[in-house]
């Protein structure tokens, strides 16, 4: 059974082939890591998956539904949550309000003109923030958070939409090692207990090898390897890419 199946995805910017013929599937409850050096096309893949940019070719199916070319809001309403490499939150709202608004959007309660937002989905928002250790910051403005906290807020906002598939672009950038481990453990928990499928990119290889069920390696837009941690570690092509680019911990 698959929740996401991608076939023959392509995208080029001007002359640059950012993504060439990428195909893969994700099953419910699975954590799939997408790795590759800087500029490999990871973010471009994510942007096509959530409708931010339209692929030149290829199809994206969510379950049986073809979501290729749908705008981001329609993709979101089909149960796809995402976090961005460059975080995007609502700076003029508190942390809690960010999450409350995400709940309201998910439950289609946006068009209420009179009942103040303050009292709506407050408990739900606090529960979610507590799981992410963000409750002490609930009343702070999102615009002044530290980078790691912003990443966690984005995750909370994405989870408030009760997604079936979660796309996380570099979710632990800007976090201390202990925080990284805690965040990925939480993601693991969610995947196992709720069947949430998670596709993520990450440049910390310890995190990748420690949490992913399966790993896809992208280089210059093309998939060069796929498999579990052991297989990827042993893969010659992958070693060549990473050693060739002068690093053993991977790109960004």
């Amino acid at each position, binding site marked *: 059974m698959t929740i996401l199946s991608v076939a023959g995805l392509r995208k080029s910017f001007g002359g640059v082939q950012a993504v060439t013929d990428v195909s893969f599937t994700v099953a419910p409850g699975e954590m799939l890591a997408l790795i590759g050096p800087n500029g490999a096309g990871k973010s471009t893949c994510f942007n096509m998956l*959530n409708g*931010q940019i339209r692929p030149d070719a290829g199809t994206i199916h969510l379950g049986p539904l073809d979501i290729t070319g749908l*705008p*981001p*809001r329609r993709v*979101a*309403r089909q149960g796809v*949550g*995402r976090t*961005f490499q460059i975080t*995007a*939150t*609502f*700076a*003029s*709202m*508190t942390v809690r*309000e960010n999450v*409350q*608004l*995400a709940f*309201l*959007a*998910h439950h289609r*309660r*946006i*068009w*209420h*003109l*009179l*009942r*103040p*937002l*303050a009292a*709506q989905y407050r408990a739900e928002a606090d529960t979610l923030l507590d799981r992410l250790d963000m409750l002490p910051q609930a009343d702070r*403005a999102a*615009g*002044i958070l530290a980078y790691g906290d912003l990443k966690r807020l*984005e995750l909370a*906002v*994405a989870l*408030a*939409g009760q997604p079936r598939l979660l796309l996380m672009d570099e979710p632990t950038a800007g976090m201390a090692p202990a925080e990284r481990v805690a965040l990925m453990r939480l993601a693991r928990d969610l995947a196992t207990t709720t069947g949430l499928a998670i596709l993520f990119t990450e440049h910390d290889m310890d995190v990748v090898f420690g949490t992913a069920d399966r790993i896809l390696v992208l280089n210059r837009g093309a998939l060069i390897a796929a498999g579990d941690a052991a297989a990827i570690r042993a893969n010659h092509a992958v070693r060549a890419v990473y050693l060739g680019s002068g690093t053993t911990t991977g790109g960004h």
Partner: protein
Amino acid sequence: MSALLVQLLTGLSGASSLFLVAAGLTVIFGVTRVVNFSHGSLTMLGAYIGWSVLTRLPRGPEWFILGIVLTALIAAALGALLETLLLRRIYRAPELLQLLFTFGIVLVVQDATLWLWGPNDLPLPRAPWLRSFVSIAGERVPLYDLILIAIGPLVLAALWLLFTRTRWGTLVRAATEDRDMVAALGVDQKRLFTTVFALGAGLAGMGGALALPDASANLQIDLNIITDAFVVVVVGGLGSLPGAFLASLLIGVLQSFGIVLLPQATLVLVFVIMAAVLVIRPNGLLGRAQSTARGEAHAFALVRPAAPVLRRLGLAALLLAACAPLIAGPFLLSVLTEMLIALLFAASLHFMMGPGGMASFGHAAWFGIGAYAAAFAVKGLALGMGAGLLLAPLIAGLAAALFGWFVVRLSGVYLAMLTLAFAQIVWAALFQAVEITGGDNGILGVWPPPWAADRRVFYWLTLLLCIASALLLRRILYAPFGYALRATRDSERRAEAIGLHAVHIRLAAFTLAGAAAGLAGGLSAFSKGSVFPNFISISRSVDGLLMVLLGGVQSIAGPIVGAIAYTGLFDLLLLATDQWRAVLGLAIITLVLAFPHGIAGSIHRLWLRGREA
């Protein structure tokens, strides 16, 4: 067939001087990223200076050419002066303040021109050669039209050579494409900007002078031409010269045919074309995408509910306002009534401009439509005041929804320009539809029924409606819809990623704001007893902007404080001086220079310096 040809030639000749002005505007924008409202003032000055120069020279064609060139040079020098003295200081200010700043210059130039040349239109006595005709396909075509038609492509070619064949031109193109890169190359940016500004101003002045033989030097040129030039630049694509050329041909020809075929609908037609172009190509015919996405470049301050102290203060002020008729005389009461109307007008503009992030330069359109709807209900349909006050927000909201459908897809400068252009079109449409609106004479005798004829009763009614509507808008801002609106401003990317339909949300906000402004307009009609086209003047739109900016865009109580402060100041100003334009213009210029981050923004910074630093 030949009548068609003549019309086409007339259109093309009109397009030429429009192109000169628009080319200047678009070149200046491309390099400095300032939308220069005062560009129209330079055109107007070009017309007046041209008049002064040409009437002193002999009548021969060679002297005419010399006079035009001289005028262009003087305008260029004025432009360089303007840039070095004033505009240079605001390159880093927010777009909206830049627009406001250059509008301050417009006001000052208007009073200066009035003072220098007097209030009368100054037609150019036409030399015989300017009146001669050429026979084409059996039709008499004015020679001067043909000359103008040739000038457009000639200037385009000259500019093209200048931009492609000279080092200076290469720098200008590089700066248009990437400002930071030029700064990094170590080019003397100041000189580049000044010379570009001089070029643009020279083109504007030349355009103004060249239009003289067909028209006259008058005080309406500045705002008339700037609206047309904005439309041309937006349709052609900001910063694109060939785009401006194409668009001015399109608009020029459209206008000349429109005047023959559908004189009432010409302006509407121009607008429809503009809207169609922008829907298909949001960056204009030949324009490029703006580099920063909406919202991503700004840091917005946190919005918190008012502190209890402020609430109590507001309540006290409201009680005081409710008791005012018991002590105030009729004059003060009418001032207070206007203040309340201004308050609702400002609150409605703030609604879309602050939380919605859509700064409108044509908010007076909805005010005016509301006022005319109310007046028409009473005088044309013989309905009562109640129906008038119901129709005012309804019709204004409807018009806002219709127009907003195009507007809310745009942002920043495009949005400001499009709203401005639309307000001008509504103004002209009301001006032209004499049978319904009385044209320049307006609609008179729009009085409240006997039960509300007493100034005090009408004041209470206004107080009730304005405060209730302003509070309703405020309540909406604290409801999920208000947050969703703010979300689309803070980060459109994130808003869409949680499933919000940004365009629909903005459109709803635009409509609500339009309806509220319409109610303010309806009340104003009954308060004044009449409506005139100047209900939709640009200066009323700018009044609204000033009120909101004075009070602070980010604070929800801001527009209310701003409206009260501004109407108070303005009434004093009107009582104290005839040169209110110059004084107001100078006040705007000074305010922007003193607070380049906006008044509220500057105070906010001071406040933060004391706390989180």
